[in-house]
């Protein structure tokens, strides 16, 4: 039951499950790529997180004495777990994924009444919870060591890492900071963005193809964008939110970078870093927690983009997409209240008359 009262896309249940599985399908290429890039630990973490989300959903339905099979097959728990897994550092221990998935499903989704009733995007709320509660685990990034490359961990080493927390002794280049984190740190010691970027040794093409440290799926910008565009082409999601999110980040970045390039990052790095592409196409577009009207969606998306830029630039944490998404989720009911659909012509006319009179 989608709660969006006047959403043009309020589908019947079968169609919800179609949407969920299509979104998952669009995530597959980027996921495969990032598992290849980050090695076996990424696969293990992904499996634990998705598995825990499904189990948590099953557990809640059991508790509420509702049949589990129809709800589980709608794919929404799988998608929540999947998105959460993609937003975690690839080498995080298993309990981070499991705890996050339980939090997302039990506290953020089922406690609010299940699919369609939740106020916040479960995956992003869980990510924020994990970041606040376990900042060390959530900000320990590794330089990627692709599968089958010389540095890659073997499967048994990976098990030891993910499940027992044993860091292989050969591996000491631990905190391979992400681009955003690195620049944030360097700015505090008066090193300009330009120097910091050069020092980080990260080329634009590496960002495009995702060949750098980051969370599981934050990195493969191209593949994620391709998946997102495919979803737009299939009319699973509309273009409004993704475009508005990207514009919300790019506009202030362009303006201020032109004003002071030493202090403010350029727009391209902003767009390709962190979870922005994933957030814009796959997370902000969640129909349950975003406004129902195109105009509302534009406001919502731009708000996410702007908040992301603000928090990245001035806030305490280097990455901001998750914070921005749940802040705007909280505003969704307000946006829906004030941005009415234009289906009923009288309503908007009456409103404008009233506005003119007052």
């Amino acid at each position: 039951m989608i709660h969006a009262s006047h959403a043009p896309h309020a589908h019947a249940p079968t169609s919800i499950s179609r949407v969920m599985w299509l979104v998952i399908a669009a995530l597959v290429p980027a996921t495969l790529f990032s598992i290849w890039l980050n090695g076996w630990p990424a696969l293990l973490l992904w499996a634990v997180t998705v598995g825990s989300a499904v189990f948590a959903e099953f557990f809640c339905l059991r508790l509420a004495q509702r049949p589990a099979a129809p709800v589980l097959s709608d794919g929404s728990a799988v998608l929540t777990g999947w998105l959460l897994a993609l937003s975690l550092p690839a080498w995080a221990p298993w309990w981070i994924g499991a705890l996050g998935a339980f939090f997302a499903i039990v506290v953020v989704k089922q406690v609010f009444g299940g699919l369609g009733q939740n106020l916040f995007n479960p995956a992003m709320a869980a990510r924020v919870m994990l970041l606040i509660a376990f900042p060390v685990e959530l900000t320990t990034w590794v330089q990627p060591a692709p599968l089958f490359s010389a540095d890659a961990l073997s499967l048994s080493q990976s098990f030891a890492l993910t499940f027992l927390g044993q860091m292989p002794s050969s591996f000491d280049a631990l905190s391979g900071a992400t681009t955003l984190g690195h620049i944030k740190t360097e700015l505090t010691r008066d090193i300009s963005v330009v120097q910091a970027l050069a020092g980080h040794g990260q080329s634009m093409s590496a960002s495009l193809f995702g060949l750098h440290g980051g969370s599981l799926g934050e990195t493969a910008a191209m593949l994620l964008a391709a998946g997102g565009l495919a979803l737009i082409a299939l009319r699973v999601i509309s273009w409004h939110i993704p475009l508005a999110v990207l514009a919300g980040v790019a506009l202030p970045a362009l303006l201020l970078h032109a004003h002071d390039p030493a202090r403010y990052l350029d727009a391209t790095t902003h767009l390709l870093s962190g979870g922005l592409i994933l957030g814009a196409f796959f997370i902000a577009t969640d129909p349950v927690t975003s406004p129902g009207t195109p105009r509302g969606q534009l406001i919502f998306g731009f708000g996410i983009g702007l908040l992301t830029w603000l928090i990245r630039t001035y806030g305490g944490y280097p990455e901001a997409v998750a914070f921005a998404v749940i802040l705007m989720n909280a505003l969704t009911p307000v946006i829906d209240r004030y941005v009415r659909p234009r289906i009923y012509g009288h309503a908007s006319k009456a409103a404008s008359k009233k506005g003119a009179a007052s």
Partner: protein
Amino acid sequence: MKLKISELRDTLGYQIALLGVVALLASLLLTQASILTRADIAAAEARDLQVSLAQVLPEGSFDNALAEDTLLLDSPQGQVKVFRARLKGKVTAVVMKLSPIGYAGPIDLVVGMDADGKVLGVRVLKHKETPGLADQIETSKGRWIFSFDGKSLNDPSPKDWAVKKDGGVFDQFTGATITPRAIVGALKRGLELFTKEHERLFDSAATQRAEGDTK
């Protein structure tokens, strides 16, 4: 009687008088309480300061009231307050109060130094750093702050007074570089200031503020 009051209390005069009397009684009560507690509160606050300063000095190494024997030094970062520890009138050590800017605002810390410029101890009094990530600077959360004990400006050498990430000898924390960097930098500057002002700091004859007032 009751009836009369219920009539009377609707009049404006009664209401004004009521408010006035209540306010007057409240002020009298508070004044009395303030007189009663003032001495104890001042003593408790002085004890707080003494305790926080004494943390960075060896036990029994001083016999004066630290908070009353202060100097203000000028540094490029602004004025630095120094408390002097005396044993039988002779200055044996100083405690410097520093406030470097960390990740989320100033970190208030005190550092004790003996006459040879050796660090006796460092403690963080107040900070707003990220909980769980950078709060290992508190003694209740980690032992990092003890890694400065016994160090001086030439041990390690001045260029090693930095976190490992910047080529120095002091550890940073996983996921937090800015906080330790701020503290190490502040301590180094504090030690440099100490060396520069050594003579003034340990001039035992210099009047204590408390004595200066009475003489």
